[in-house]
Structures are given as structure tokens and as C-alpha cells.
């Protein structure tokens, strides 16, 4: 499936990945390769392992990798801390962004951005320079400056939280962004803002994995590949029309693939 992008190396390679939490297997041999400029969509029922896959790639401590590898830019990252993964360019957009009371959003964004910049050997930004940068990025998600003085995600509406995630993505300029149900809980207008934000941030060098239940996000951002997950495995991979077919026929249709494989 990667035949089109032969000339460059993959950003992310997940090879035969199995993982468990509390001795309960969640992923059962997932393989996925993302090349620069590609957009992948992962769909599937609740509990199929989509979110778990994203958390494991980001390094969540609650999951144990029991088999397989995650390679990022050719390096095995199985044992890296979550912060090291972020600094090196992996971004996870949370399905439910976490509230951090008392920590100002501005300061959080600055510390986070500087951690990435330090990794890239770029100069760290002081408060004033960072203000300039963030002002520019706020445009992308059409967020008001007032968001910055509030505590991280505290008292934000669902849509505001998701836009704050995309703002972080814009600041961190990741090599790969995994967006876990970024579209859920958004109204049509907010969805458009978020989708156009994602498009603006991504380019021919970045990879994107969209985890979603719905076609409507994929109408805005057309994926190169669609993967269907079930019971901890990718059971079918196709191009963007697979999502349409899935929307039409429902997940019951995919149950047949399991029997086939």
C-alpha cells in the first residue's frame, strides 16, 4: 500500500503490535505504516482498540507492549517516555482533553512549545516572543486571546477543548499527529474550524492519523487510507471510499471480514 511514496522513509511504523493493560490483551497484532504527507483514518466500534493504539504510540504508562515494535523515523520508541516522544515530534490529540486547575494555559503552551524547540535545537521563547507566536497560531483555530489566561482546559466547552488541542498541534509542529475523535462533540461550525486548522498545519512532511466514528470529518479532510479496527486488530484497509461504504453499511458489514481472515 505504500507503493506511491517509495522515495521517502516512513514516519511511523507499527509492526505486529500487541499490548495489554492489567493483563487484559487490548491490541492483538496491529501493523500500520505512515509515510510523509499521508492521512490515515482509523475507524471501528467503541472498544475496538483505536484509542488504545493512539495512547500506546504516545507512551501511556498504563499499557504494556507484549509484542511488536513502534518505530518513529526509523528508531524503536517502545521504551521512550511520553515527554521524549512528544519532544521528538509525536502528537496525540486527546479525545477528552484533561483539565489542569491553576496552571495557566499560556504558561503550559509555552513550556510545552519550548520543550519541543529545545529538542529541535531552536531557541527557547520567552514570554514576549511566545505571545507573538501564539497570536499567529490562535488565528488558525479562531480562538480568542482570553483562552490563554484561563487554566488549562478548565471550564472549557467541548468545542473549546478540541480547538485548544489543535492549537497545541499548531505550536508543536509534530511530524505525526494522531487525533483521537477530535470531531466528536463538535457542531458543524466548530468541525469546519478544526478541520481547516488540521489542513493548515499538515504538509507534505507530516503524517496524520484520524481516529473517528464519522464520515463527516473525512468529508473535510480526505484520507489516503482508511483502516477498520475490530477486537484489537486492523481487519480491513482501503482508500477513502471505504469510509463511505462503512457509513452506508454499518460495522456489521465489517464483521464478515473477521470471518474471512
Amino acid at each position, binding site marked *: 500500500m505504500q507503493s506511491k511514496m517509495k522515495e521517502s522513509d516512513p514516519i511511523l511504523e507499527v509492526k505486529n503490535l500487541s499490548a495489554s493493560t492489567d493483563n487484559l490483551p487490548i491490541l492483538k497484532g496491529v501493523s500500520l505504516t505512515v509515510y510523509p504527507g499521508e492521512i490515515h483514518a482509523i475507524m471501528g466500534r467503541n472498544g475496538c482498540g483505536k484509542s488504545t493504539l493512539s495512547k500506546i504510540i*504516545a*507512551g*501511556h*504508562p*498504563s499499557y504494556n507492549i507484549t509484542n511488536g515494535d513502534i518505530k518513529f523515523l526509523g528508531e524503536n520508541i517502545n521504551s521512550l*517516555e*511520553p*515527554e521524549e*516522544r*512528544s*519532544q521528538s515530534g509525536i502528537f*496525540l490529540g*486527546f479525545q477528552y*482533553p*484533561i*483539565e*489542569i*486547575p*491553576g*496552571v*495557566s494555559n499560556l504558561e*503550559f503552551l509555552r*513550556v*510545552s512549545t519550548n*520543550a*519541543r524547540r529545545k*529538542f529541535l535545537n531552536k531557541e527557547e521563547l520567552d514570554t514576549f516572543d511566545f505571545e507573538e507566536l501564539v497570536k499567529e497560531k490562535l488565528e488558525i483555530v479562531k480562538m480568542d486571546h482570553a483562552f490563554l489566561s484561563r*487554566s488549562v482546559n478548565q471550564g472549557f466547552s467541548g468545542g473549546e477543548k478540541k480547538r485548544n488541542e489543535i492549537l*497545541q498541534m499548531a505550536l*508543536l509542529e509534530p511530524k505525526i499527529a494522531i487525533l483521537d475523535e477530535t470531531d466528536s462533540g463538535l457542531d458543524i461550525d466548530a468541525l469546519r474550524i478544526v478541520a481547516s486548522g488540521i489542513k493548515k498545519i499538515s504538509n507534505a512532511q507530516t503524517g496524520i492519523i484520524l481516529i473517528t466514528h464519522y464520515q463527516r470529518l473525512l468529508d473535510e479532510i480526505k484520507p489516503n487510507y482508511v483502516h477498520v479496527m475490530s477486537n484489537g486488530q486492523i481487519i480491513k484497509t482501503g482508500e477513502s471510499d471505504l469510509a463511505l461504504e462503512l457509513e452506508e453499511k454499518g460495522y456489521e458489514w465489517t464483521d464478515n471480514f473477521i470471518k474471512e481472515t
Partner: protein
Amino acid sequence: MVNENLVKDVVKEPYKYGFVTDIETEKIEKGLNEDIIKLISQKKEEPKFLLDFRLKAFKKWQKMKEPDWAELGYKKIDYQDIIYYSAPKQKEKISSLDEVDPKLLETFDKLGIPLTEQKKLTNVAVDAVFDSVSIATTFREELAEHGVIFCSISEAVKNHADLIEKYLGTVVPASDNYFAALNSAVFSDGSFVYIPKGVSCPMDLSSYFRINSGDSGQFERTLIIAEESSSVSYLEGCTAPMFDTNTLHAAVVELIALDDASIKYSTVQNWYAGDEEGIGGIFNFVTKRGKCLGKRSKISWSQVETGSAITWKYPSCLLLGEESVGEFYSVALTNNLQQADTGTKMIHIGPKTKSTIVSKGISAGNSKNSYRGLVKMGTKATGSRNYSQCDSMLIGDQASANTFPYIKSQQPNSEIEHEASTCRISEDQLFYLQSRGIEFEEAVSMMVSGFCRDVFNQLPMEFAAEADKLLALKLEGSVG
């Protein structure tokens, strides 16, 4: 859970100030009796009224019982096994800093409190107290130009006896409590501040208390008087060496604010807390109280309590003057086997008085952290108001937090509001910050600072930065 252990590792606390200064000291023999008290008074060349004050206090203390109502457990203190006076040997009369033992100056240098003319802090006047005596006070002349008196209490006894006689023990009477009575009997040194009418003190004043000797107690006494329409911001810091025995520290602080005067008293307490097994550390039994005597006077306490094996401390306000204001902002961090029982008393006596209490307790390790506070509305306190907020944060699953708010109202025309909450640093919050490139330790300390934000905002600028650093330091360690 895996992460709980990680958090525990992170809060391991390196103590930077645990060194001992090797210096010749003059100590009196162990034990407490009338002769010892007479000896202390004689050494300090005190007037008779003060010796009488001490002896009366001692008589009262002998009849009192050590309080046991606090949520604290410790082995009984043997009051006869303590040295009540210990002072570094130096020349009889010191006229300038040049005559101070370089070892002492070096000690304060190491603590980040340089005292010499070349190096001294430019915006803060410092009174440095080493064991039982005050070593030096900076900027005295500059302050004197404004009529501000800032000196050790021993000097004040000699040079401003009238003020001492008039105010000493009027806020915290000797009979107030067991530890206040003990302090009144044996107090050795401390700071004295007098701000004359209409003067707003041109710089922050600060006392730095250093315990050096392992077997002597420290009993300092601080008295601050702000005359009509005056104001002052006072800072207090404390550290002690690491000994495997417990050292008793029983201080008394009295503040008096007259009409339209305001006193801001900030503390960063970082006495040695004992090791991970709870061996050693300071027993900190302190009585701090302010009297808002005048109309529209204001007393504001802010404290960051991170040290001591045991902390027993309730900085309080007596709100007598009409429309007077009392404030208490507190952060108390306990770790390992530390125990803290701290809070405040806001006693509303005059009409239209106002008080605010914001308390943030952070408990890590196997520590115990209690907030204990009293808000009382007297019969004449019409139209008075109180707002209290007490939040606790637990780190790990072995630490405990308690809140004991006492409310007594004899005045139906007053308002009392109390809010309380308990939270825990969750794995999800940590993962969220980490997944944004923020290191685990920094993530923990960011959340702790965030939790304390309301209190840090009340601290003087340099102090706020220091407090933030101190908390981060306490939370420093290897991520396992």
C-alpha cells in the same frame, strides 16, 4: 499503581541547608528552672520588668499541660534536656559587620542571605538570627531616616524599653498557651519593628532564623508595631542543620496595627524536616497573632510551610477595630513522616470586620496534614464577613489530609462562608502534560504550583519565586 510509585519517588526531598557551622559557642547548662531564667535575663542585661515578665510566665507554664488536641503524634519532649541559651562566641560589643565572625557571615552567605555591605540584598533589610542571638541587621541607618526601628528584640529592650513594656505580651499573653508561656519565660532573641505614624516602610523587612546547635531550643520573639496610617511588609525565613535528634522551636510573634495601618507578614518555613524514616527534624510550636486594634487596620499573614517534623501553628487575627481586615493565606507541604496541624483563628470583635482564609495543604509520602481554623463572630461584630477556602491535595495513597473548621457566631448579622475540597494528582493529568513534552517532575511541580496559585499571588514578588522554587525542590528527585 505504577504511577503512584513514580510520584512518591519524585517527592523525595533533598535538604540543601543541612550543614552545621563549626563555631565556638557559649552555652548554658541544660534544664529549666528559675535560676536558668535569671541567668538568661542577666546575660541579656535586661531591666527588671522583663525578668518579672519571664518569671511570671514560668510560674504559669509550670501549672500548664502540654496540649494534645492537635492531630499530631510525637514522643514526649523532655524540657529538662534542652539548652535554653546558646550563642556564638564573639566580641562583647560589635560596632560594625567587620567584627562579626566571618564564619557566621559565611553561613548566611551559604543560605543565600548575604549580610556584608558589598553583597547585601538591595531591596530588603535583614535581621539575621543565629541560635539564640541576632548577628546583624542591615540598612538600619537608612531605615532610621524614616523613623523606622528595625533591630533585634534584645537591643529594643535596651534602647526602646518603653515600647517593649507597653506592647510585649499584649497580643499573646504569657498564659495564652503552653508554648507561648514557655517562650515568654525563656525567649532569647528575635526581631523588633516599629513603624511610626504615617510612614510606609521604604523597603521590605526580613528576619532569617538559623538553628545551628543540635541540643538547644530556639525561642525567638518578634514584635511589630505599626502606628496610625503606616504600613510594612515583613518576611521571615528559617532553616536548620540535619540532626538525628529533634530540636524544639517555640516562637511567639505579636503584631499590632493601629488606625489605618497595615502589616503584611510572610513566612517561608523550611526547618529541617527529619529523614525519610522520620528521624530528627524540628518540632515547630509557634504562636503568631496579630491585633487589628485600629479602625480600618489590616493584618495579612501568608505562609509557605514546607519544613519541620512537626508544625503546630495558627497565625491569627483579633479584629477589634471597626472595618478592620484579617487575611490568612497558607501553603503547607508535608512529605515522608512530617506532620502539620496548621490554620488560623479569625476573631471578629468589632463591627464590619472582614476576614479571608485561603489554605492549601499538600500531603505526600506518609505525612499527615491538617487544617484547623476558627472563625468567631462576637456579639458586636455586626455586618462582619468571613470567607474561607480550604483545599487539600494528596500525592500517593499513604498521605492523609484533614480539615477542622470551627465556626462560632454570636452575631446573626454577619456572614460566614466556607468552601473545602480535596484532590489528587491523577495519572491522566500527568500523562496529558507529559504527552506535551513536559518532564514528569516538572509536570508534578507545575500542578502543585497551580494548586497553590491563589496563595503565591499574595506573597511579595521575590518570595513568591523563592516559594515556587522551594516547592519544586521538595518535589525534586529521580523518576524511578
